[in-house]
């Protein structure tokens, strides 16, 4: 909690303090489809410090999800390096817990509670400990009432809450979120954004968050890494840590600035979601 507060005040100046938690250096990532190579991420470098909330913002198809998948270990790099706490990441692992956009990311055959307990058991935690933590995160995500339900009995927003609780219960070094609120209605989305900010503050979790919503990026994040069109590079890193009230002039002008950054690279404004 204290770290978070200091971040909000000190912004970029903290970069000097120690090694970054996550460092992405000259990452080049793509897919091979039918023997043809498609480069999505051209050359991207950025760093995430402990306790920071970093937003990856960019137009559709700019490779921001691809980048997140690479950080999670689902995809290899063509070139460059990704290091977590100084160590190169090669395989998926619970130290980089992921929350996906899809509602069906919960195991349908397990109750809400077991969806949170089971992954902890997989990483080797004792049952009692796993259950204790599960109760803790159920309460934190306001899920206690739904603990014994099965995922198909939950609304989309509830399912995403469970996914966040599940990921947090693993005590990840960094929480990766791939447009987790992208499929929710506007009302639920803004409520979950507020809750996420609150929970992040209370758990001091480090966050790498992919979004195509400028409003979400400014509202939730500390810094926004803006990517251009594929093969993408970093356009600019914008500090938005002080901005948490959308009614302020500063918030609006930062949004305008990001909008203009994205518009340079994407003539088709329709692809972007402006909130």
């Amino acid at each position, binding site marked *: 909690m204290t770290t978070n507060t200091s971040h909000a005040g000190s912004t970029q100046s903290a970069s000097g303090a120690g090694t970054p938690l996550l460092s992405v250096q000259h990452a080049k990532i793509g897919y091979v489809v039918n023997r043809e190579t498609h480069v999505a991420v051209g050359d991207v470098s950025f760093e995430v410090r402990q306790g920071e909330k970093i937003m990856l913002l960019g137009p559709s198809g700019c490779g921001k999800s691809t980048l997140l998948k690479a950080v999670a270990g*689902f995809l290899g790099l063509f070139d460059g390096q990704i290091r977590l706490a100084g160590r190169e990441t090669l395989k998926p692992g619970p130290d980089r817990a992921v929350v996906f956009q899809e509602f069906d990311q919960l195991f349908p055959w397990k109750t809400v509670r077991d969806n949170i307990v089971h992954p902890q058991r997989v990483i080797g935690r004792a049952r009692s400990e796993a259950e204790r933590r599960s109760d803790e995160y159920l309460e934190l995500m306001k899920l206690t009432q739904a603990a014994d339900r099965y995922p198909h009995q939950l609304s989309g927003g509830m399912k995403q809450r469970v996914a966040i609780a599940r990921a947090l219960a693993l005590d990840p070094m960094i929480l990766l979120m791939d447009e987790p609120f992208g499929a929710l209605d506007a009302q639920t989305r803004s409520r979950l954004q507020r809750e996420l900010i609150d929970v992040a503050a209370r758990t001091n979790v480090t966050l790498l968050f992919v979004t195509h919503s400028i409003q979400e990026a400014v509202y939730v994040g500390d810094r926004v890494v803006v990517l251009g069109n594929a093969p993408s590079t970093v356009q600019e890193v914008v500090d938005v840590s002080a901005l948490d009230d959308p009614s302020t002039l500063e918030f609006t002008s930062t949004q305008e600035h990001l909008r203009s950054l994205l518009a340079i690279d994407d003539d088709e404004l329709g692809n972007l979601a402006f909130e």
Partner: protein
Amino acid sequence: MSETREAEQPVTAVSAGSAHHRRTWGDLPTVLRRGIVLVALLGAWQLSTLFMTGAQAQLMRGPLEVGEAIVDGFARGDLVDATLTTLRILLLSMAIGIVVAALLTTFAMWSKLGDDILNLLTAMINPLPAIALLPLAMIWIGLNTTALVVIIANAVIWPLAINVSTGFRTVNPTLLAVGRNIGLSGWRLVRGVYLPAALPHIVSGIKTGWAFGWRTIIAAELVFGVAGEGGGLGYFINYARFFNRTEDMFAGIVTIMIIGIAFDLLFSLLERKTVIKWGMKTA
């Protein structure tokens, strides 16, 4: 949308309460409706036997006589033995079928070649009624239980293998990503994600396999005569035919029906307790 629904509800409630003249057959509970139909059918059956004389009466038995024959058959023990023999051979064949189907599926998941082989074999063998292989199996293997087991396992393998491999192939990729994310890989990923996620397909594969196997074993026993160390239900019927015991033929048939229904219920229950409860399959 919600407004419309709210507006409709009271109307429905009123009409259901007041309009007793609209109460029709369809308004009765399903169990009651089916029960009435069943009783009517049994009654018609019993009635039909009353009008039969001579040779016709030789060929027909009413539900009461058949019920008595079933009770007698179970009391004597030969109907029990026949039922157990059939079930034992069927369960053994299914166990073998499941193992072979699992191997085939693994092979199919593991390589494109295996997938091609499984698909081609299934496309070729599945449309062939398994019983058609019985004469060949009897010549190759002999007049013993092994021939029966081979035929029935064959009937079970293909529907099962194709269902399970479809199930594995269509596992939601997000769930697989979650599994890998929490650190599952190899066999633990199969057990933790693939198997439960493919359960609806696996259950329906076992259901289809059972249905194929059940039909095949009865048919095989009818052709085969005594199977191994004692005849099954198909043989029971045929034996009754040799001894002109029409009521026992009916008893065998009804027993087969009852077991068929029992297994269907068992599978329904299994589905209700699992995939339907989990929302992976609609009831």
